[in-house]
């Protein structure tokens, strides 16, 4: 969930009233926002870098507000205020207009070289904008928020904003070899080639995260103006030449990317948010984008579309009984201008370009519910008759769990992920013999594989509890995972029961006695006859020679028990003898 931080006083000024922290928190809650933190720049810096560094920082109160991940129109102060004011019916939702320029339209020509790396681009112009320091900061911050969220860290879309008065169109969006791109980037004092820049930015804490998007590509995307000035090398950095400042009046905005839909949404959001400060409020100057195939389109789209939803559908899905007129009013408060049409049960809803999150009637239903107030909805219990049931294996697990505890063993719950070492080397096995599922992106060795046996988890638990009085008698009943090409995903869980006895003596007879008890509970009689169980001398690298037996029950091998090999004990950093038992309980269902 993205967090937007806004200056409280600025926010209240824009909302036209002040709130107490509690009041504002409540308003947020109702609207689906969350007032996450009340802080200041000073507080943030002192928390992160100590009070000394924070000495000079501003102590203007900041509200950090969590915004739903699909509401890109609420990612800046301007959008938040507009949304809340419309919600509280203090203003009517503004109508965004795209206009053609008096003179020549700004053109962005896409060449076909971009196809392989970053094929899409859209553009627009904000004319006669009036920034202040706060507005300018918000403008930059919105781009950053969009980059982090809908733009997927610039991978899908990257935004460039430029001082149009320093440039001369038409602009060309193309892709070139890195060595052929040379320009002075933002915040640098001299020109570098793209190759040099990529090296320099490897140590840049902010930009290094974006380098991978184009790094190994033969051609890098780049935008030129008609004089050969580089506007930007998306998605990494803009040129210094066209940088915008607080005093910039005319802004050329380009969005390049690999996702056309998202590029259009991003452009719409930026221009709808900041056209507020243009001389002609909420009016955006169109730009023409010429595609490699010669066709062209004008942007931003700023598309308004109409949706039709029946009032009874909304009432049913929310569980309320409101008149269509009231529902239309509720929706209008959510920035969705609505009116009742047709037979009096149809509501026509206008979806503005800011609400790209509305893709289905259910999204409209939700907005009606929010405006109605989730906490005003009368609850009802569904009148459905159903029969409870338990998953049989879980039921068996539960029964065994109680009886194991009743037999004096203590239950533990260990992790399903562990290191290769735990399930292989430490038990004297080769990893390939375990048929284990391997994780491709573990952050530490503790998450390399899914466990194929519960034993390592129990031994690690003993190691972590060596100070407890002896004997330690532990058990776990959980799933292990084995590769299995017969299942759709290629791996299968098995429900295992594992128990260990750790004392000055190995206590094989105790573990054996436990097995007898388990079999008694499972209603499996001793003996080789069909349906019975026996243990037969066996070998295993984890066990002491001659102290290992395989357990056969109902005609199949279900597991092993025995005294652990001293090597195993040592590798798990233990010092006492230990006997163990591990069986698959699946066959006993």
């Amino acid at each position: 969930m993205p967090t937007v931080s806004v200056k409280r006083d600025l926010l209240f000024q824009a909302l036209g009233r002040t709130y107490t922290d509690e009041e504002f928190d409540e308003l947020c809650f109702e609207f689906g926002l969350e007032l996450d933190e009340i802080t200041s720049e000073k507080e943030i810096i002192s928390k992160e870098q100590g009070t000394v560094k924070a000495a000079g920082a501003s102590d203007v109160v900041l509200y950090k507000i969590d915004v739903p991940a699909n509401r890109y129109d609420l990612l800046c102060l301007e959008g938040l205020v507009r949304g809340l004011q419309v919600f509280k019916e203090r203003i009517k939702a503004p109508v965004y207009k795209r206009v053609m320029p008096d003179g020549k339209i700004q053109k962005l020509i896409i060449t076909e070289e971009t196809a392989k790396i970053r094929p899409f681009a859209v553009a627009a112009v904000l004319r006669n904008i009036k920034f202040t320091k706060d507005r300018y900061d918000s403008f930059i911050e919105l781009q950053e928020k969009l980059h982090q969220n809908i733009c997927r860290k610039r991978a899908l879309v990257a935004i460039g904003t430029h001082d149009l008065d320093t440039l001369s169109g038409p602009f060309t969006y193309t892709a070139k070899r890195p060595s052929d791109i040379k320009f002075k980037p933002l915040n640098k004092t001299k020109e570098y080639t793209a190759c040099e820049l990529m090296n320099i930015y490897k140590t840049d804490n902010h930009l290094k995260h974006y380098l991978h998007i184009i790094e190994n590509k033969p051609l890098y995307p780049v935008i030129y103006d008609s004089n050969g000035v580089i506007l930007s090398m998306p998605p990494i950095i803009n040129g210094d030449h066209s940088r915008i400042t607080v005093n910039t009046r005319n802004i050329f905005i380009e969005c390049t990317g690999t996702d056309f839909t998202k590029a259009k949404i991003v452009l719409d959001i930026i221009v709808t948010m900041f056209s507020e400060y243009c001389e002609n409020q909420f009016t955006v100057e169109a730009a023409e984008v010429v595609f490699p195939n010669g066709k062209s389109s004008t942007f931003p789209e700023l598309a308004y579309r109409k949706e039709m939803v029946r009032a009874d559908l909304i009432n049913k899905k929310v569980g309320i009984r409101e008149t269509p007129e009231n529902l239309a009013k509720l929706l209008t408060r959510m920035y969705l201008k609505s009116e009742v049409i047709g037979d009096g049960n149809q509501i026509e809803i206008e979806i503005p370009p800011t609400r790209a999150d509305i893709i289905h009637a259910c999204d409209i239903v939700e907005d009606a519910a929010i405006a109605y107030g989730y906490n005003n909805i009368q609850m009802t219990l569904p009148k459905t008759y159903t029969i409870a049931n338990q998953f049989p294996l879980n039921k068996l697990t539960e029964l065994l769990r109680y009886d194991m505890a009743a037999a004096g063993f203590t239950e533990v719950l260990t992790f399903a992920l562990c290191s290769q070492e735990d399930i292989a080397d430490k038990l004297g096995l080769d990893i390939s013999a375990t048929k284990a599922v391997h994780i491709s992106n573990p952050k530490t060795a503790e998450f390399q594989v899914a466990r194929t046996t519960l034993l390592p988890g129990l031994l690690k638990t003993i190691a972590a509890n060596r100070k407890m009085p002896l004997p330690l008698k532990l058990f776990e009943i959980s799933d292990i995972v084995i590769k299995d090409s017969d299942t759709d995903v290629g791996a299968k869980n098995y429900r295992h029961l594992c128990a260990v006895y750790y004392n000055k003596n190995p206590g094989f007879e105790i573990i054996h006695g436990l097995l007898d008890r388990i079999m008694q509970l499972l209603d499996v009689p001793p003996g080789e006859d069909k349906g019975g169980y026996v243990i037969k001398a066996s070998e295993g690298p984890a066990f002491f020679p001659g102290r290992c037996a395989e357990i056969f029950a109902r005609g199949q091998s279900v597991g092993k028990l025995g005294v652990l090999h001293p090597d195993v004990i040592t590798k798990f950093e233990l010092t006492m003898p230990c006997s163990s038992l591990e069986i698959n309980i699946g066959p006993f269902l």
Partner: protein
Amino acid sequence: MIKTLETMYYVINHVKNYNTYHLTEEGFLYVKQGSPEFNVLKYIFKKVKCTMDEIKKEFGKEGDIGLNILFKNKTIELNKLDKSISCSKNGKKSNGFTLNNITEDVTQKYLDKINTYGEKENILFEKICNNGLVKNANNIIQELKKRKLIEIKKNSYSYIIKTNRFETQIKKNITDLNYLLLKNDEYTKYSIKKYNFFSSGKKINKGNLHLLTKQMKAFKDIFISLGFEEMNTQNYVESSFWCFDALYIPQQHPSRDLQDTFFIKEPEKCQNDFIDNFYINNIKKIHTYGDYDSYGWNYNWQLEESKKNVLRTHTTANSCRTLFNLAKKYKKQGYITPKKYFSIDRVFRNENLDSTHLAEFHQIEGLMVGERLGLSHLIGTLTAFYKYIGIHQLKFKPTFNPYTEPSMEIYGYHEENKKWLEVGNSGIFRPEMLLSMGFSKDVSVIAWGLSLERPTMIKYNIKNIRDLFGYKSVV
């Protein structure tokens, strides 16, 4: 003997200590003849003036004793010129002497009293004190003892009381009952040693259930009592298809990042024929262009991406499988049988670990399938569910989940901490998800989920999740 009887609680023994006082041979002599100091003084007094030799001649050894005491008390003094002894002026007043007369032999008097009352300490002291005229009775006694005129003997006596457990015959004492003693009421012949009830009991050899599985069972019981059916969730490895795509989570969604999800190296992808093509095409359609009155996500959906195996990040993947099976049945029979499902099982997140986050945790999930189910039903069901776990006040916050719309975050009022806590997430499954499975528009599914660990930590006031789950959690 008395002590033995006492430990058997037959009697109570009160012991009292006291002294008796006896005259020595010398003491008796002085009582009879008078004390040497008195006799010597009397002689000096009579003679007015005499020499030391004269006294020694007259009294012998006794004369030395008398002179010593009289000099010490400064009753007599030695004239340094003619070496004669005479009564001192100062001394005459003390020790019962007056200038002109000798009143009494004090030493003899006390010795006499001790002789008479020496056996009874109280009376003796009273007599010596003589109605408070003499204050330092003890000093007098000690002085006489020092002169070896008396002896002090320490004595004690017992005051023994019978208890109600008094027996005329002594029973043998034993520490505890045993099986032999139970035969023929043998134990009645013995007295059994008393227990010390102030000590703690012996640590018992116990087995235990894990806190989380206990809590799991508690939640299970709630679901069962509300008529819910448990889903099969027995696969940790899941394809991205079921984990994300089938839930209408777009392929660029952040939850599918390497930072958030464990991807599987081996087996890297699910089987080619993991599910029927009809369903795959529906999923492709809703992601790419949209359908069922939805505009879709509008991007190039890749089948290969959806085949990538992951460790399931939520059990909703299993819910999705369950619903898909239900949809197949629905298509066959043409009507929907209302269903309530639940599951409690492990899920995996490739998160940075801290005191409240582990890479593995348990998710509790409930869902209801039916016609015409709306938010009011969800709120009703949640109210019933949370009441069981002791949360009586709920409020709901609008939120965004990729696969539910409307979505509600659930907040519960924690009575003890007096604050609202987020206790779960809920919503109505998106039509894109349900319709592509083959359900009709009339079928809706309401669902909610929460973690098992969080309410357990709140309930037992556990601050670090590692104390609850993992190798270090207390056995």
